[in-house]
């Protein structure tokens, strides 16, 4: 699974899957911390819809972790202050880069998690739709 989809699932989920997948790697392979997880910022570039041009909305606090497994450096990045999850994401990133056999087996678990995330979002949206306005035209 490519990184974009994989990180969507691992970050939108509750974190337990990222933890479990990372643990399955660190139990078997040597994992070296390239740099301690640190907080930093990302500048958000946004398209405004009046003239369709770009502007900088502002900075967002992120946590970044870097680890090395089998000679490949993995990066974990996420919004907020969560060093543990950033490290888990870095380990998973490195596992994919190093093409470890475990990563191939993760596909099913990730797709199941994606389904759960989608169901939760759909349910939240259905609850929110209770506030949808139903206009009635009045006779005068």
């Amino acid at each position, binding site marked *: 699974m*490519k*990184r*974009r*989809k994989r*990180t*969507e699932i691992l*970050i939108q989920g509750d974190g337990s899957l990222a933890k479990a997948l990372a643990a399955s790697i660190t139990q078997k392979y040597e994992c070296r911390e390239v740099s301690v997880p*640190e*907080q*930093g*910022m*990302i*500048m*958000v*570039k*946004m*398209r*405004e*819809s*009046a*003239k*369709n*041009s*770009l*502007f*900088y*909305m*502002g*900075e*967002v*606090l*992120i946590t*970044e972790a870097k680890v090395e497994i089998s000679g490949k450096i993995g*990066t974990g*990045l*996420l*919004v*907020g*202050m969560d060093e543990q999850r950033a490290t888990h994401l870095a380990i998973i990133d490195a596992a994919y880069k190093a093409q470890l056999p475990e990563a191939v087996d993760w596909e099913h678990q990730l797709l199941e998690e994606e389904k759960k995330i*989608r169901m939760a*979002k*759909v*349910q939240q*949206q*259905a*609850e*929110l*739709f*209770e*506030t*949808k*306005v139903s*206009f009635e035209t009045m006779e005068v």
Partner: protein
Amino acid sequence: MGYVPVKGGTQAIEASIKRLTYERLKGEEILEINTILATMGSMIDQVMSESSLYSPELAALAIKQGEGSLEEAVFLMRAHRSTLPRHYYSETVEAETMLVERRISASFKDIPGGQLLGATYDYTHRLLDFGLLEESMETNRRWLEDYKDNFSAIQGSKEVVYFPKVVDYLREEGLFETYKPDNTAPTDVTKKSLQFPTTRSARLQVMTRGQTGAVTSFGYASLRGYGQVHPTVGEVRVGKIPIYTIHPNEVNQEPEDQFYIGEIRITEVESFVPVTVKNDNNKDELEFEIGYGACYGQNETKAIAMSILDQCLEHPNTDFPTHDEEFVLLHIDSVESTGFISHLKLPHYVTFQSKLDSIRQVKKEVQEVEN
């Protein structure tokens, strides 16, 4: 008269800082960060927006440390921001990717996708709720359970719904001009000081991080006649937008290799402003333009005011202060304005003494002439 260096007050300053701590602690109550996060959402949104740093946790800490003073909290956040590395820029965020929590239009009742009120104070009675004086966790839990029970039978659609923009529907009808995507790299006012005339991107960046009160007041001033923009709100939307980025050192990256890093909650506004333009036959014709506003968190008043000021500044006019970009952009920043006003409290002994000397001299000369 030359400057006279003076020193002193170190002990008094130390005692003053201790006194500040005493004032915070003397009530013997501790406000937990989680309590601020859970119950002071609007305040957190305002601090994040004005400090231009999205982090609810840090904003809550800044609010606690600043004892609820928003100017102090924003100052703390900006100071902290300057200590953090910035290794990444996001991929362009397109607002259509927003997972909408609230979305209304004051221009049309029937907008594609419908009007979604979400959570808003707009329809509440502004009466103090004395029940909150005796709020209990047990009652709140029961309320939450009842609320959730109402939804147990609700069946959602199978897929998550993303809302189209109201303006897209009007553009399809040819009522609004369609602009091709302009991918010119934006100006970053955190890297380079404002230069006048500015760029559109610099204006939007300064306004989105502007002080809520200042942006609102200038927008209001425009409506009251100190400007020429009176819009109809086309769309206000509040929701979460996903952020993606690429690794700065990896080469040959496909879009599928991007990192998803999470989402942030923002407010976005498009205001429709009627303008008179000349048509091909040199006759006056009415057209609509769009004023754009967006900010971190849910702060609809600020975003609407920003959309008014955006439109004002797109049409410079020295007759109106709200159409003067130097006037608007140089006075809406929280740290700059509160900092400059605050500095008046600092010792100005020499400058004031010099003014006194001048007045004494003038009075003496006048007296001599009169005598």
